């Protein structure tokens, strides 16, 4: 990041090579439209280049931060909403270096296994809340469940994922 701050284009290219696929994949999963997903990805990396994002070194993994920002920006784009990043610290439940391709692949594999282990109801909730950007009120309206129940279930699903990855 120090090199990027001093306008080192090679350093920025390295970060793009390392995380470009991850950011694009998350944006594409939300938006389902390659051009829009690329726009989101280009903007995220350009903001990182300009130093205008809220990422702070030493406050969590850059890869994890980018993954969450990619999702948030894609949802903003989906809702035609002004980007509103409030992502600051991102602490992964397992000590994983997402900068390392092999560790990242291992983590991805682990996450997929744990996700498949969630109940269909939990998987659906995660899908609606994370990838479709639905609020808990919208989910409650869709499923007919009480608001509090939806909130608790989303939390429970994510805690299950966290514990599964930690274990």
């Amino acid at each position, binding site marked *: 990041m120090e090199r990027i701050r001093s306008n080192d284009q090679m350093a920025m290219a390295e970060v793009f090579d390392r995380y470009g696929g991850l950011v694009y994949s998350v944006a594409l999963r939300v938006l389902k439209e390659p051009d829009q997903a690329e726009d989101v990805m280009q903007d995220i990396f350009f903001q990182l280049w300009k130093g205008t994002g809220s990422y702070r070194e030493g406050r969590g993994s850059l890869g994890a931060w980018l993954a969450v920002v990619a999702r948030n920006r894609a949802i903003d784009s989906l809702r035609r909403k002004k980007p509103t990043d409030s992502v600051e610290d991102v602490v992964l439940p397992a000590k994983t270096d997402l900068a390392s391709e092999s560790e990242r692949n291992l983590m991805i594999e682990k996450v997929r296994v744990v996700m498949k282990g969630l109940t269909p109801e939990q998987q659906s909730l995660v899908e609606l809340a994370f990838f479709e950007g639905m609020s*808990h009120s919208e989910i409650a309206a869709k499923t007919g469940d009480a608001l509090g129940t939806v909130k608790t279930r989303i939390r429970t699903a994510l805690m299950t994922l966290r514990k599964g990855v930690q274990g």
Partner: protein
Amino acid sequence: MTQGSHFGSHIPGEDLTLHALQALTAEESAAVQAHVAECELCRAELAAATGDLALVALSAEQQPLPTGARDRFLVRIAEDAKQEEAQPRIAKVIPINRASVGRVSVWAPRVAVAALLIIAAGLSVEIMHLDMRLRRETAVLRSLAEKNAKAQAVVEALTAPSAQRVLLTSIKTPPSPSGRAVYLPSTGALVFQGNNLASLPADKTYELWVIPANGSAPIPAGLFRPDATGNASVVLPDLPKGVPAKAFGVTVEKASGSDTPTAPILLAGAAPAAGE
């Protein structure tokens, strides 16, 4: 949002998760952010909840980047770096609310950006040229103003009633070499004209001295060498203001001049009281 229901005075985990998901209203999010800014426990819990979301993000099927995406990005930052170098004080990135703009086509925004970049590059060159021209003209004006001020000071020194006018002649006879000094103590303006001065070897020079009326050390008032006809002048040497002169003198010194006059004094003249 159910503040305090699970964590005492802290934000409930469910609400922190919803905040991380950006599912809260603006007001609720603001309340969470305000609390988190002050509460280390909730900040850590929010970071962990955001970490959970990063895990969910990792579950997205990995897709290859679109063809040319990397090149497009590298070109973008290269152009940005170029602009930064060309206009470090002018170039400023203005975040564009892309989400609020309807997507007309895939290429239209990129063509527009390319056109804007070309226009911006052209404008930056034009600005550089105008800036250089402005600097040149400012320098000419400054030089003219300095010359004008100097000319006015000469006229003032020569015409002021309070100027001390002194005729300097050779101490030895015949007094063929001579000098005439016109001095305005209040401004330190001095004009000296020497005549019939002998030529000097290359390692020597004439030096003019102001002998202050208060008895302090002689003040060097300029180096000069006569022309082929023996004439020389010293115009507005760098002198302190407000030093009335008792006398003026001319000595021969080494080519670089001296801080104190070296005997003998070739030309000397006592100054009358100002305005006499």
